[in-house]
């Protein structure tokens, strides 16, 4: 057993309101520099939709992630080592700037300097790259709230294998449904960006599993960009280096949650430590698609198990990290309650950011000018969420997003969430633990105490409940080598050594 620690984030999609505060917080903190204008280390997508960059999930185009050949070998989809050598100077699978979007701003100066006239002066859009006036034709959330359904929602790679009738219903105006999907780098256990880098500039750091680009080593081959199936490594055209989400490690090291999580208005994000067994990763990544979620959750270890604790200590994980893993909200949602799933496990990178899939109300159909809801008359009174088979967001669609097409896993999760909802409604509306609530809970194997706990951590968590960040003891590791006062104020602010093109 090779126990290691991973800082993991969890997104409760039921609570996301799509306000993009996380994206803006991240932008202001990290990518407000020359060369990073088009980057959104954190972005929020509307689903169904094609996301940012456009169609990133379509690996037939972008060639990201791993492919399992079924005979005990995992291969990069992008290229083998030999192919990589022949394509070193021309990587055909890179996203175009158009696939991201041409970053723009507005010429606000015109508002003040325009000559007097009969009409109001306007600030025309200009490109942040060329500085020339431009027509804005796309953006990082261009299909926000289904703004681009005809192109984007229709071409969502996750809805391509839905029955035609369901797809037609999704596009009907009364059936239109969407939810939000915030995305950051997944800090995978089996990162394909690391595997694809010809210079070995990317690494997964030991203490908390954050995947980082060493900008002093990066030679701008850009293989990481196409190899990452989530398209979360970006190329800075000004410094000629790759950049990516760093999970705000300077904030983590000083005991704060990452900026995106900290600023989240809906409080949908949770941070915590997960302990995992690194020896089990290869086996877990090489199972059939349907079993991927289960095998990945098996890699995550129980921090209360004395054997795990002993092995963790042997690997240099300190007591306070083990304690943080025991209190981790992510561990509870992912492992104990089995409510959270990784995004696109079929990419086989073993993403370590987890999502609780959203519930959606049942489908409504227009009949005789009235909206007829497909409510189950036998279920709890007017329960809009009761019938999963009639949910507006098809279970198959969610399964394509979070469980590699395995609908059973999604159904279990949604049913559990529904049971907690029915349980709490019975308590607050009926004032009692009704028979309906009892049967709903027992159907999914929850007891009232657990249901109460899920409810509390979902709706009423404090800052300390949501973000359980272990002490990094950075001061101790610095003191061992350098005078800490010499480095005061240097961590994470600007460059200690600015990146130079070609170095």
């Amino acid at each position: 057993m090779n126990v290691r620690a991973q800082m993991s984030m969890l997104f409760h999609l039921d609570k996301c309101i799509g306000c993009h505060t996380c994206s803006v917080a991240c932008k202001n903190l990290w990518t407000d520099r020359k060369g990073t204008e088009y980057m959104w280390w954190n972005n929020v997508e509307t689903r169904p939709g094609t996301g940012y960059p456009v169609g990133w999930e379509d690996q037939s185009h972008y060639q990201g992630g791993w492919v399992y050949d079924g005979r005990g070998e995992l291969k990069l989809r992008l290229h083998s080592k030999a192919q990589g050598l022949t394509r070193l100077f021309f990587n055909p699978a890179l996203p175009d700037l158009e696939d991201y979007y041409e970053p723009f701003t507005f010429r606000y100066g015109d508002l003040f300097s325009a000559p007097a006239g009969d009409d109001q002066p306007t600030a025309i859009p200009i490109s942040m790259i060329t500085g020339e006036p431009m027509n804005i034709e796309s953006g990082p959330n261009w299909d926000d709230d289904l703004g681009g359904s005809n192109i984007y929602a229709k071409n969502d790679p996750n809805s391509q294998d839905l029955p035609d009738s369901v797809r037609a219903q999704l596009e009907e105006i009364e059936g239109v449904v969407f939810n939000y999907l915030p995305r950051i780098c997944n800090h995978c256990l089996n990162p394909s960006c690391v595997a694809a880098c010809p210079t070995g500039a990317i690494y997964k750091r030991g203490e908390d599993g954050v995947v980082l680009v060493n900008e002093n080593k990066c030679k701008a081959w850009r293989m990481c960009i196409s190899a990452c199936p989530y398209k979360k490594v970006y190329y800075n055209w000004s410094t000629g280096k790759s950049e990516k989400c760093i999970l705000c490690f300077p904030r983590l090291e000083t005991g704060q949650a990452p900026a995106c999580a900290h600023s989240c208005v809906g409080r949908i994000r949770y941070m915590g430590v997960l302990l995992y067994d690194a020896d089990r990763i290869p086996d877990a990544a090489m199972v059939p698609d349907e079993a991927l979620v289960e095998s990945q959750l098996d890699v995550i270890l129980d921090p209360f198990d004395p054997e795990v604790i002993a092995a963790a200590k042997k690997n240099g994980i300190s007591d306070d990290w083990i304690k943080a893993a025991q209190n981790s909200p992510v561990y509870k949602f992912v492992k104990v309650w089995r409510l959270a799933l990784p995004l696109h496990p079929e990419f086989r990178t073993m993403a370590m950011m987890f999502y609780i899939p959203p519930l959606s109300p049942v489908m409504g159909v227009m009949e005789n000018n009235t909206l007829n809801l497909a409510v189950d008359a036998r279920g709890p009174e007017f329960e809009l969420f009761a019938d999963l088979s009639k949910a507006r967001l098809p279970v198959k669609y969610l399964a394509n997003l979070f469980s590699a097409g395995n609908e059973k896993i999604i159904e279990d999760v949604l049913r559990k969430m529904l049971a907690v909802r029915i349980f709490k409604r019975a308590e607050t509306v009926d004032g009692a633990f009704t028979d309906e609530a009892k049967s709903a809970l027992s159907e999914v194997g929850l007891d009232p105490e657990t249901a109460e706990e899920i409810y509390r951590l979902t709706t009423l968590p404090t800052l300390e409940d949501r973000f359980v960040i272990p002490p990094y003891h950075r001061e101790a590791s610095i003191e061992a080598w350098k005078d800490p006062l010499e480095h005061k104020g240097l961590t994470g602010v600007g460059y200690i050594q600015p990146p130079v093109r070609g170095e």
Partner: protein
Amino acid sequence: MRMQRSWLLALLLMLLGLATAQSGAALYGNNCAACHGASGEGVPGVFPPLKGNPNVEDPAYVAKVIREGKSGPLEVNGQTYNGAMPPFPQLSDAEVEALARYIAAGLSEAPAPKPAPKAAKPKGDPVRGRALFLGEQRFQNGGSPCVACHTAKSVGALGGGALGPDLSDVAQRFGSALPGVIKQPGFKVMRVIYRDKPLTDQEAQDVAAFLAEGGSGPSVATAGSRLLGLGFLGFLVLFLGMFPFWPRQRETYLQRLRRRK
């Protein structure tokens, strides 16, 4: 520092010039014979003769030409010339005077043309001359190969350089004076290039033999258009090879979505 050094050098040269103030005949041999011939016979149609030329009977006129050079149409004994003679600022006043007197007097002081070059004149080897011309064999003193600036017949399909004139018919123009011209060129650019790296007698003879041999080959103009044509052909082949792959690569995912819509 550099400036000072060149001044010093100029001063030294001047002193050297004074110290070795030469006779008119020697001056003539060093400065004029390359073009106008050892005995002032000139080259018909190219370089006017100095012997029996009524224009040069006035020493003042000759001195003026030596100092300032001369170019443009000129008629001597019924023959028309249209060339250019460079000025010779490196000659001191005393030297110019001596030279002008010598020439105006009908090269009278002239001793019999040196017998040495005539006697030692070996026969040139055209094969070696070609190798020297093309730079396949280096000049002993390190001078640039002729092909860098000139072309001539039978130098190959793509021709030689186009900076200097075409030397295809140079042998007819200079005749037997050709080796001398090659060895001690009177032309402004060549004189500078070969001042420190002169050709040996044998090399000059070889190159002259090669040039005299003539042979067939494309003129400068044909060689240029041939080179252009080959370049264009190569470009076409590359472009055609690239063409089948090019359009597919350029389509972005967004363009694909819009097209499929």
